[in-house]
């Protein structure tokens, strides 16, 4: 039976059919749904780990124990998990181990546009790249076989357009291979220098064997349409090239992108007068070809930035452009915003009002950087808000300590924020850290985390008590505020900045989109009382706008959070 499936759902189906029993991941767009779909299969144990490093180590442990295992993450998550990855390459596997890494060309939901193929090359593991949902499922199943045959963790590289596109998939049954025997083998699994030296020799031999495999693997396909143009490509770029060029070109579609084949590429290039390499982000395949002395054209036409499309391929290779219709008038941009009722809004309003310097982090609350709140000065990577605040304060001293805070979400704090807080306590700055505890991992679409009291399957779980954790780390001043109460929140920020001591403010209120959160009726503006001062617009609430000089509240969006009633000096907003 054919079913329309999201690439990530097909990936999860592949895990199921391949007999995976242990899954551990950290959410990150566009990889999150792989693990969510995997958790829907009762036969698979699936969990959210606190971060990607932990997730990969869990998966490796399960593999060493003899089971097929998986961990999934976005491209920047693989940086966090790079430490176990580079050594997992040395230990190899027992049961097959597959890692999903999802790149985000075009940065739909990411802080950089890195190309994760570099990690596969540097860690010397096998990497494959599917180009639609059917391939997601098939490549995952093949990857487990290859992982076990070649004693190597396999990375399946996804990208936004493959992960979040639906296409038809043929469903098969689950086949669970018998669990491999576990036998103590320190030469393979204890990576101290004496043993690791031996494993490095193995890794180099394995790369040779994998390269030989890549020469003849069915994952690498030639589509020979004759003609003078050859295109070497992989993943989603293949789909763009195929749509733009159809039968006017021949294709070498690489399913294995590390290691790359040599003879296969040389043979392909010898058949065509002109060969193009079409790959998003970096020039990995192109550089490989050029090292082999092959005359190919790639980045000089296509560049390194953003997503490609069939239109870009057609324009670069055929010189054709589509005719378009245009709108006569200015169309204002529509950037993403914090939702109506978002608990982060009240906190950011207080920070903005007091012109506080804000060391920011990764999550929905990064939107606090946007106008009109504009209350964020830096955003770097998961957890960096706290450690960068400490550095900022060390550099600028007391003046900064009294006017600078870090903001970080509950999930991000558990991911890698708490080590930064340990540093603040241990190496003492009078820093003020605000944990935005909305009781969920918000931006990636509501995943549970170690503070929420539920696990991935929705069952009750141990919950980390943030207040106790911060105290145990060595922060004496820990207090909780409700960000719907602006007066309380503002007073807390001012007090904690003023004291010559490190402190943590927990700004606590569940995400307004959580199903269990009860909304109040929409608020109304009493037109006679509204003076049109536009103070309420400073909140940046999408439900409030001004029509004919008076504020109006969109009843379809307003959830009655009430912070606008606190900023209106004329009492013009009522229940």
């Amino acid at each position, binding site marked *: 039976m054919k079913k329309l499936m999201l690439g990530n759902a097909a990936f999860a189906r592949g895990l199921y059919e391949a007999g995976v029993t242990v899954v551990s991941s950290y959410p990150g767009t566009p990889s999150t*749904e792989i693990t969510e779909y995997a958790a829907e299969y009762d036969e698979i144990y699936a969990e959210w780990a606190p971060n990607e490093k932990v997730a990969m180590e869990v998966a490796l442990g399960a593999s060493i124990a003899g089971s097929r295992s998986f961990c999934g993450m976005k491209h920047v998550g693989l940086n966090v998990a790079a430490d176990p990855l580079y050594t997992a390459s040395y230990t190899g596997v027992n049961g097959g181990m597959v890692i999903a890494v999802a790149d985000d060309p075009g940065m739909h939901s990411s802080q950089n546009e890195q190309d994760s193929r570099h990690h596969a090359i540097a860690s010397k593991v096998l990497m494959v790249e599917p180009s639609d949902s059917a391939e997601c499922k098939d490549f995952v199943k093949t990857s487990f076989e290859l992982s076990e045959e070649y004693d190597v963790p396999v990375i399946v590289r996804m990208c936004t*357009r493959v992960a979040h596109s639906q*296409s*038809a998939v043929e469903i098969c049954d689950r086949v669970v291979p018998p669990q491999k025997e576990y036998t103590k083998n320190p030469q393979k699994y204890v990576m101290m220098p004496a043993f690791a030296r031996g494993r490095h020799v193995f890794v180099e031999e394995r790369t040779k064997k994998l390269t030989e495999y890549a020469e003849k693997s069915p994952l690498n396909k030639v589509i020979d349409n004759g003609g003078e143009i050859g295109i070497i490509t992989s993943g989603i770029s293949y789909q*763009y090239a195929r749509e733009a060029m159809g039968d006017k070109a021949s294709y070498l579609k690489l399913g294995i992108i590390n290691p790359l084949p040599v003879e296969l590429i040389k043979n392909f290039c010898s058949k065509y007068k002109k060969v193009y390499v079409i790959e998003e982000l970096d020039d990995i395949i192109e550089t490989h070809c050029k090292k082999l002395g092959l005359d190919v054209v790639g980045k000089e036409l296509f560049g390194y930035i953003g997503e490609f499309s069939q239109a870009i391929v057609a324009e670069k290779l055929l010189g054709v452009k589509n005719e378009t*219709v245009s709108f006569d008038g200015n169309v204002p941009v529509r950037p993403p915003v914090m939702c109506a009722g978002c608990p982060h809004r009240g906190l950011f309003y207080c920070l903005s009002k007091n012109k506080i310097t804000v060391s920011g982090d990764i999550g929905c609350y990064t939107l606090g950087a946007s106008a009109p709140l504009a209350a964020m000065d830096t955003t770097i990577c998961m957890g960096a808000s706290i450690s960068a605040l400490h550095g900022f304060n060390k550099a600028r001293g007391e003046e900064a300590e009294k006017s600078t805070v870090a903001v970080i979400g509950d999930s991000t704090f558990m991911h890698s924020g708490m080590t930064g807080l340990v540093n603040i306590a241990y190496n003492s700055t009078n820093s003020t850290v605000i944990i935005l505890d909305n009781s969920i991992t918000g931006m990636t679409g509501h995943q549970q985390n170690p503070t929420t009291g539920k696990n991935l399957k929705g069952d009750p779980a141990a919950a980390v008590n943030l207040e106790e954790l911060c105290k145990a780390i060595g922060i004496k001043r820990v207090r909780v505020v409700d960000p719907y109460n602006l007066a309380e929140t503002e007073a807390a920020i001012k007090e904690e900045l003023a004291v010559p001591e490190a402190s943590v403010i927990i700004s606590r209120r569940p995400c307004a989109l959580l199903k269990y959160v009860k909304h109040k009726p929409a608020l109304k503006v009493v037109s006679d009382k509204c003076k049109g001062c536009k103070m309420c617009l400073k909140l*940046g609430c999408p439900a409030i706008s001004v029509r004919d000089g008076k504020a109006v509240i969109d009843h379809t969006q307003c959830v009655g959070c009430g912070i606008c009633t606190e900023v209106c000096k004329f009492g013009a907003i009522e229940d």
Partner: protein
Amino acid sequence: MNTRSIMIVGVGGQGSLLASRLLGNVLLAQGHDVKVSEVHGMSQRGGSVVTYVKYGDEVWSPVIEKGEADVIISFEQLEAARWLPYLKKGGKLITSTQKLDPMPVITGAAEYPDDIIEKLTAAGVEVTAVDALALAEQAGIAKASNVALMGVVAAKTDFDDKLWQDALEQCVPPKFLELNKKAFELGKASA
């Protein structure tokens, strides 16, 4: 048949994901090769959101580029204007008349354009404008304006009604199914 391209545009939270999944399921049941492309994450938070639905004998790229869409379905007027350049010459536009101010309009940095529907028509596009929110509210479920608009789409296409009903049952949670079906029927009747 050649690949046909439909874009569904709106504001994050208006339900373009569900609408694209409905359409995708109907097209797959018709025996087409189908690709549906969605964007999740950051842009969903009240930003401009677009999903692509493509079908034909064999669909390659899941995305739609400027000048390629046969039909654009829009849940909001300004978004219809924003994505207009993606419409093929001679393509059709079906839009809800709902207006949602983007943040630059709320803060006063920009103005919401006047007479969008008139300007779209003046650009030579065949426009169907429907108050989908009013239809959904009439059905008793304001959130189903997406499904009401898909009812309009159903009336303008010739796919078997059973396929739409099946797709609704597959994509809408059982708790809200009856109200969504009502919104769908009101949309269909309005076209």
